[in-house]
């Protein structure tokens, strides 16, 4: 199953903020975590994560710092800000509403899973 482009785009911000809410992280690790959380079904183009992170940084939702471990590579870590947490909470509310509405439709009408002929009247 491939998830549509628009849906992927819409879900990137809450996913990234949610992952960062658990603790600071860096680009590659975030990407790996997204893969694990979705069972590998949510596919991003790796590189495009970075412009997104930079946008979140510009908006003040995350902040970044370069760390230079002994003997290791220089690596840029991102950390969620207080404002980012507020944004995450807001996104959470919005997504919950959408998910609930969808579940409502799918549960009680049992439609949409299988196509069926349109009634004549």
């Amino acid at each position, binding site marked *: 199953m491939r998830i549509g482009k628009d849906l992927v785009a819409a879900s990137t911000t809450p996913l990234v903020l949610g992952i960062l809410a658990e603790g600071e992280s*860096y*680009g*590659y690790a975030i990407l790996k975590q997204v893969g694990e959380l979705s069972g590998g079904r949510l596919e991003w*183009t*790796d*590189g*495009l994560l*970075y*412009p997104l992170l*930079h*946008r979140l940084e*510009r908006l003040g939702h995350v902040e970044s710092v*370069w760390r230079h471990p002994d003997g290791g*590579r*220089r*690596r*840029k870590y991102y950390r969620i800000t207080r404002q980012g947490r507020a944004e995450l909470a807001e996104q959470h509310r919005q997504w919950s509403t959408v998910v609930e509405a969808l579940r409502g439709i799918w549960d009680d009408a049992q439609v949409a899973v299988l196509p069926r002929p349109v009634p004549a009247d």
Partner: protein
Amino acid sequence: MDAARETVEAQIGEWLAFMHRRRELSDADAAELEDHLRARMDDLVSFGLEPDEAFLVAVKRLGSLDALTREFAREHSDRLWRQLVLDGGGQGEPAGSTRALLVVVAWAVAAAVLVKVPALFGLGLDDHPAFYARNAGVFGLVPLVAYFAWRRAVSRPTALGLALTCAVGVAAANAYPLHDDAPVTVLTALHLPLALWLTVGVAYVGGDWRSASRRMDFIRFTGEWVVYYALIALGGGVLTVLTAGAFKAIGVRPDVFVGSWLLPCGAAGAVVVAAWLVEAKQSVVENIAPVLTKVFTPLFVATLAAFLGGVLWTRTGIDVDRDALILFDLVLAVVVGLVLYALSAREPAAGPDRFDLLQLALVVAALLVDVLVLVALAHRIGEFGFSANKTAALGENLLLLTNLGVSAYLLTAFVRHRAPVVRLERWQTGYLAVYAAWTWTVVLVFPPVFGFS
């Protein structure tokens, strides 16, 4: 294994170099992406891939560089503009650009100081305006020649040639016993800057003036330089007016400071700064001169057509006094400029399109106007004989007539798919030599021929 690792390192190096060439990506972005690439590769290798395979997969997963840079550019559009001023321009000075900026400021200050040197010897701007008018080209452009000669690290013979040419220019402006109000003085004041500008061209192309494509580069540079200089002049004008007004409000009259320091020094310094700006932005933003050309070509066609219609309607010839002659020379020069700048921005391989037809119309209309001017001029010369002004005007008209005539022929051939556009390009770039010969003739030969009266 080590050899394989080395190959992969070389590949990563190439990939990084490719990233660094993208102006949308800052060094920090490239480092971040490199870290990502290596982390992905480490994982893939631990799953059993060979390093070079891992590299290929990791690069592929990063996505196409074009898509990537587009996203980065969208997020960081400001960068393109910041680089405009702070980045040395890609070639020559590397991006460690505070130094490049300081060097240019030093050159601009030197050019500004040069303007004030004659005042030390009692030649003030207020008392000797004619001296400064004659030498405007010298003050403005000799520093620019020196700047490019230094920037391009020209060979010794070229440097010597440039120095000699500049010396001849200085001599032409000052050695002849010219009366301040004589017509030849005005002609020198008008032509010496043009002659020296072509000398700037020789320095700009690093002495390689025989190369047609380098000459085209200089033509592009000229157009962009004019645009930048005009912009700087506008900004400087606003600044000057505001400053003067503010000082007047507190009872200090800054007229002398503005008139004899700010304006001349600023004008001279801005020559170098504008040239540097053109260089600095060369590869970042689309050139502006060709855009202006596209906008104004139709308007000029309409204007010239209306003028020709007016001549037919009123059945009067053109009244050629000096101002009118200069005006028509300017019109023709602008037309040649429009042809040049449309040419400078063309895809060499593209075929003729509607814009080329418009250009052909422009050139033909300019030719007709030029013929009218020449008829009027010949009439006047027949009546009153040759004078310095009329001879200069006649020469310029013939020069531009020849240029436009051949251009019309070549454009027609191009529009009819008979000749490639390169021939028009060669013609125009080659013609620069004719301009040089003519302007130096006016500067050097006219004063003795038409007397020093």
